[in-house]
């Protein structure tokens, strides 16, 4: 087993406000192999974006890392000072944000924003910078003539691609993407996903891809992490989660909430209720109030992450020392 590129141990993030300290991310453990595509899925407020920004050391007050370590290239990033971090940033790991419209500086042209990045980490001449910028734009399918245009002059899809091009300036080992496709229509989304997968395989960088829409990463990611209320609910190979029903009731509910575009039509139930208030997390399993397969002990005992085959799941049904009431999975039965 090659040593992991990124090791996250017990990472927790607090939002400090006058009224309460909200633990948005609760002791997450994660290993990422070089060149691996990890999808992180979860609904609004589950802490997925906070986790990624915590890994990238990009948290702004009132968010602060409360505990845990993020070991990347052998160094614990949480301990590094801003100056030390500055050398690693973008050269070894880069970030692509959700809405490229306000992630690009409206006052500077695309070329200028590439230039200051390259100059911050290398001593390339003007010509080399121009050439490298044109090259990464071509890689993502944008005509280098757009180098001199400004963000507001590009279409949504092109801005998103320019962001990805910027992330690849130094072909880093790790790219963190926070919902880069949510602002795009389905056709543009698919073409961007194809391109991201192609680039990842060609350039070999590891990728953490955050999205609220499970179907987006279902065909692209190697492994999938489902997050709920600040905790990892399930983590495992993507195909495992789709070919047979997922282990965690929440992942199952999430998957079943998708209306299918092909094949037989099935009634959707969705997941009633709302996620818990993270300022006062419930004692037992955080999904218990909304869980169709909840058992009495779920309300008192907080489940840990149990290993089931290649996956891990935070649910007492798989705790081994608990005999789950044999209930047929209602949807599996009538699969024609």
């Amino acid at each position, binding site marked *: 087993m090659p040593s992991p590129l990124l090791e996250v141990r017990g990472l927790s993030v607090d939002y*400090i406000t006058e009224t309460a300290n909200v633990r948005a991310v609760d002791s997450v453990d994660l290993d990422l192999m070089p060149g691996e595509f990890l999808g992180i899925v979860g609904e609004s407020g589950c802490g997925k974006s906070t986790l990624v920004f915590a890994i990238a050391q990009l948290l702004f*007050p009132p968010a*602060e*890392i*409360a*505990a845990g*370590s993020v070991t990347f290239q052998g160094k*614990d990033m*949480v*301990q590094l000072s801003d100056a030390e971090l500055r050398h690693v940033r973008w050269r070894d790991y880069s970030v692509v944000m959700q809405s490229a419209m306000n992630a690009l500086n409206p006052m500077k042209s695309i070329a200028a924003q590439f230039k200051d990045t390259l100059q911050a980490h290398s001593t390339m001449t003007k010509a080399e910078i121009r050439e490298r910028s044109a090259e990464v734009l071509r890689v993502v399918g944008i005509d280098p003539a757009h180098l001199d245009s400004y963000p507001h002059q590009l279409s949504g899809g092109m801005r998103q691609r320019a962001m990805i091009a910027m992330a690849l300036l130094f072909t880093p080992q790790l790219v963190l993407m926070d919902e880069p496709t949510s602002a795009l229509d389905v056709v543009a989304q698919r073409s961007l996903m194809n391109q991201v997968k192609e680039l990842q395989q060609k350039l070999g960088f590891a990728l953490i891809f955050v999205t609220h829409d499970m179907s987006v990463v279902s065909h692209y990611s190697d492994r999938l992490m489902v997050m709920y209320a600040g905790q990892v609910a399930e983590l495992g190979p993507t195909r495992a989660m789709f070919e047979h029903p997922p282990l965690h009731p929440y992942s199952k509910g999430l998957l079943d909430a998708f209306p299918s575009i092909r094949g037989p039509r099935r009634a959707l139930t969705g997941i009633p209720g709302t996620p818990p208030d993270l300022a006062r997390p419930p004692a037992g399993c955080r999904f218990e109030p909304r869980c169709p397969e909840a058992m009495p002990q779920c309300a008192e005992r907080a489940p840990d992450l149990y290993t089931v085959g290649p996956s891990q799941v935070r649910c007492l049904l798989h705790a081994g020392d608990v005999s789950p009431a044999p209930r047929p999975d209602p949807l599996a039965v009538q699969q024609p």
Partner: protein
Amino acid sequence: MAAPAPTLAPSAVAAELRRGSDALGRFTGAIARNRKAAFGLVLLLLLSVVAAAPQLFTGRDPQALLGGSQQLPSGTYWLGTTNTGQDVYSQLIWGTRLTLIITVVAGGLASFVSVVIGVAAAYLGGWTDRLLSLLTDVFLIIPTLPLLIIMAAYLTGAGTDAIILALVVTGWAFSARQLRAQGLSLRTRDFLEAARVRGERPFYIIMVEILPTMTSLIVANFMGLSTYMVATAAGLQYLGLGNTSEVTWGTMLHYAEENGAIFPGGNPFWVLAPGFAVVLMGAAFAFLNYAFDEIGNPALRSFRRRRAKPAA
């Protein structure tokens, strides 16, 4: 005398909309919690009491010639006397009333004008918007004090009402522009279109659907305008304009300056007392304005970082 420029970025409206609850309940809560607001409010209440019942604070007639010329503060004359022997302290107390009236009336009228023009421009759009915005820009560019002085000069002897009119005519533009900006960002909100689809009349939409959501900015602007009015009205009277026979802090400053109160041999308290009184009233409104700025846009709140970076 620069008017404070509270900028409430339209993006702040989103925060306010998400958090807004029933307007009155939240305000009293917000004010109580906010130290600055509480300080401003207490000061204002104090000034209003003095304005309402000056006789509680001084028995002497502010106009009566009692002591010697420009005597320094003493047991009998707490703040000394004017060049004609009048008691500076009682003038200060009696001057509160008119100063507060001018400030609040001018501030209120200017606020009203700015709300009407700002909201109308934002909501009606099209040509009305262009015309009203042009009018606002013109009044913003024309320097206010010179225009004010000219109007006051032409209206000499017309008394306080003329001063208030001049103050309002020159003071409304800045807050009109801010209200228009917030109004425009509100226009894109769906709940206004929902009201139109329900079949509501435009007047109802402005009065019931738009104005309540803008209350914190309207109040902040009123406070800002009042701070501006206190200083500007005093400035005019200091220059000897308006009705100099009335007892206000401004006229006190005028006579004090003219009779060399600050130069050796004069009674400096004759000028310092009304001066600091004006500052006090201005500060009361300024702090309330600042507090409402923060209520409207919590991101602006200044805070001390409490926890150092946690050790691993």
